[in-house]
């Protein structure tokens, strides 16, 4: 798994690549927490090169969404979610908790 973070004026664009499972989810969660700790609560998560995510990753997503939405200070939105991962998120009932965008530019423009 690899994470890159690009700071824009109104939001952070975090790209997560590779596989998020129980082994790598702590690192993924930490990247989201690091943004929050710098008072960055508007986050676009670009999943274009994400190959796999288990419920350990979903747990990190949920924690981040809770923290970002607190006091209406922001939210996490998802961009370019691969079809298999979208299906798993749907099964877990997560699709209604996250806005999804087909391209990161629109997602960044959302903020």
């Amino acid at each position, binding site marked *: 798994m690899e994470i890159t973070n690009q700071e824009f004026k109104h939001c952070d664009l975090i790209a997560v690549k590779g*596989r998020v*499972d*129980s*082994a790598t989810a702590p690192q993924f969660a930490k990247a989201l927490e690091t943004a929050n700790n710098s008072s960055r609560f508007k986050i676009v998560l670009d999943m274009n090169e994400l190959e*796999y995510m*288990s*419920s*350990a990753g*979903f*747990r990190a997503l*949920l924690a981040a*969404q*809770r923290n970002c*939405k607190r006091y209406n200070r922001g939210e996490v939105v998802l961009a370019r979610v691969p079809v*298999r991962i979208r*299906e*798993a998120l749907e*099964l*877990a*009932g997560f699709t209604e*908790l996250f806005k999804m965008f087909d391209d990161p530019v629109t997602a960044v423009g959302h903020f």
Partner: protein
Amino acid sequence: MPAYTFPASFDYLDEIRELVAETARAGGFSEKAIYSLQLAADEAASNIIEHAYEGISNASIYLTCDINGEEIVITMLDKGTPFDFSAVKEPNLTSDLSERQIGGLGVYLMRKLMDKVNYETTRAGNLLTMTKRRV
């Protein structure tokens, strides 16, 4: 039925998913089904490492993964703490963000992704059997 032994560590989840994918691919399962099988196996192994072997090091997961006619059969045996599988409630997937529970999601996904999930505690250990038909 070859049996594979994996150290009960998250670092081996990649290999477990790879083994399941190879077997399923050879058995003619679709890419969508292969992803489902990998996810179910990952959730099962993660649960064993996290719960059955909580606080135990040097433990192992004994895994079989075979094509049996139209079905793929994945078994995982652990020698850790038995787990009350039937007591895992379905998570409330309609509750809003603040009430959303994350516990039980792994088991819920396993049940949804597979056709059959059976868990029993035997003399050899806790045996999880998951099957899915090729469609």
